[in-house]
């Protein structure tokens, strides 16, 4: 479904703030696969998602979604096929508009928006039903502004909005990181329900080793803009939080050794 070939991106090239966010990322994701992406800080996890979504254009490499070349397409053009949930609960919703209006926007993701009435009775009915199943008591408050809801409720709604029109690819960028443990748990359970029920191809970035170990059928670990571990199938199922932490430690140690060794060599011989 998703294929990235040699994705590279450098931010602020030729300046003191130069950051090589992506360093030749090769990733192929089958349809219906749920990939969890973990990595050290600055490893390029969010950059990978942003590159796929089109928030920026990559310097080199290609992105294919369901056989279609998205590499040079603008973000709003890619949005037809991609659903996104951001880390910040405020990023995925329009705070001053009502819940119903937010959904009317999501319901037309990728479609032409003309002079048709945004809040038709069909949409409102379907919306009430779907929101009722969330058991958050929001189905009678659809006219309230979304800004009045808590972070957890907003993320739950953003998730519903991102998948209202079935996306070919769902991008979840640490979408529970800004929530309290209870809300995070609720949102994760909703995520599981939606992803597994609709068999959505999903890329989920997370900081939580717990989530990484228990969710998804594939785990990808990134470091310095590259994929360094790729666990699938049985290997992924066997992985526990301790295993993942151990791999992280291994990366850090290798890193420190490389750098201090290089420094020593440089001082001695250059």
């Amino acid at each position: 479904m998703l294929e990235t070939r040699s994705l590279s991106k450098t931010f602020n090239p030729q300046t003191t703030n130069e950051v090589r966010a992506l360093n030749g990322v090769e990733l192929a994701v089958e349809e219906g696969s749920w990939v969890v992406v973990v990595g050290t800080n600055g490893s390029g996890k969010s950059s990978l998602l942003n590159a796929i979504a089109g928030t920026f254009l990559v310097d080199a490499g290609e992105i294919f979604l369901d056989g279609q070349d998205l590499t040079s397409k603008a973000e709003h053009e890619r949005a037809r096929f991609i659903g996104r949930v951001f880390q910040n609960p405020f990023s995925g919703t329009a705070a001053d508009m009502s819940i119903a209006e937010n959904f009317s926007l999501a319901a037309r993701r990728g479609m032409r928006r003309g002079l048709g009435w945004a809040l038709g009775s069909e949409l409102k009915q379907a919306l009430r039903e779907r929101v009722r199943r969330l058991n958050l008591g929001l189905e009678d408050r659809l006219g309230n502004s979304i800004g009045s809801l808590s972070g957890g409720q907003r993320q739950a709604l953003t998730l519903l909005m991102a998948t209202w029109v079935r996306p070919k690819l769902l991008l979840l960028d640490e979408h529970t990181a800004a929530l309290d443990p209870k809300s995070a748990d609720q949102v994760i359970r909703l995520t599981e329900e939606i992803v597994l029920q609709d068999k959505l191809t999903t890329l989920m970035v997370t900081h939580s080793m717990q989530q990484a170990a228990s969710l998804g059928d594939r785990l990808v670990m990134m470091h310095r803009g590259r994929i360094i571990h790729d666990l699938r199938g049985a290997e992924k199922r066997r992985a526990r939080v301790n295993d993942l932490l151990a791999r992280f430690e291994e990366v850090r140690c290798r890193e420190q050794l490389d750098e201090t060794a290089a420094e020593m060599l440089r001082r001695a011989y250059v």
Partner: protein
Amino acid sequence: MTLLIGALSLGLILSFLALGVLISFRIFRFPDITVDGSLPLGAAIAAVLLARGVEPTLATAAAFCGGLLAGSITGVLHTKFKIHGLLAGILVMTALYSVNLNIMGRSNVPLTSEVTLANYAERAGAAILGGVSDLNLLGWEVSVRDAFVFVSILVAVSVAGLILYLFFRTNLGTAMRATGENDQMIRALGVNVEHMMVFGLAFSNGLIALAGSLLAQYQGFADVQMGIGMIVLGLASVIIGEALVGSGSLGLSIAGAVMGSMLFRLLVAIALTWGLDPNDLKLITALFVFLALVAPNFLSRLGKRPALGEESRAAAR
């Protein structure tokens, strides 16, 4: 009474200005200075066409289109050329000063003998009331012309307000509102933010040019300087309107902008009747806007204060 009707009529004409500023400033969160140039643009286009004998409705429509063009240019400067919004507006406004002069050929174009929309209103009044030149409304003398001009503008503004309200409840309109609020979200939902911005600014300035053309026909002349300070007037109307009805829903915002414009002109008319020096008009405008901005907060705090006073007195005992 003539003063009152005049102030209200002017307020209604300038509510098109307020509605335009509502779109650019509140809905798109874009401080659009183009206003100072697009209002006289509308006036200039209408005046020149009317002087050539063009039918008033066509001349007014042409003025609206002129505003659409001016707004799109500001929009393109901002979205395609990445020029800061404020600067883009200033650039277009500055350029329009010369454009307006060129259109008019001189700095002032009188419209005393031409057929204007005001004449249409007058004729409608004559046809309906059969040749009477003055009305007697509750003991006050009101000329038929003034009364019918007032009524026709009222109808025009009501229709425009309704169209705006309906438009912003459509899919396209809702997407435009969201663009101003959270462009990251709306991009991820497939909306071309750049197109929305250009469209919104075009529409906003179209309304403002319309205000200019109506103003020229009402006051009987178009002047190249008539746009100076109009952005402030527009903002003042919107802010006074919000102080009156709050900014909760779309419908309230639209109604508020219209009422704010009328109230503002009314206050100015009253101030002038009380002997305010016209030189101080801008100072009074600033004062009104300041009061409109702080009054809502002040009044709500005033409501809570007596309780606090009692508590502290009880604690002191």
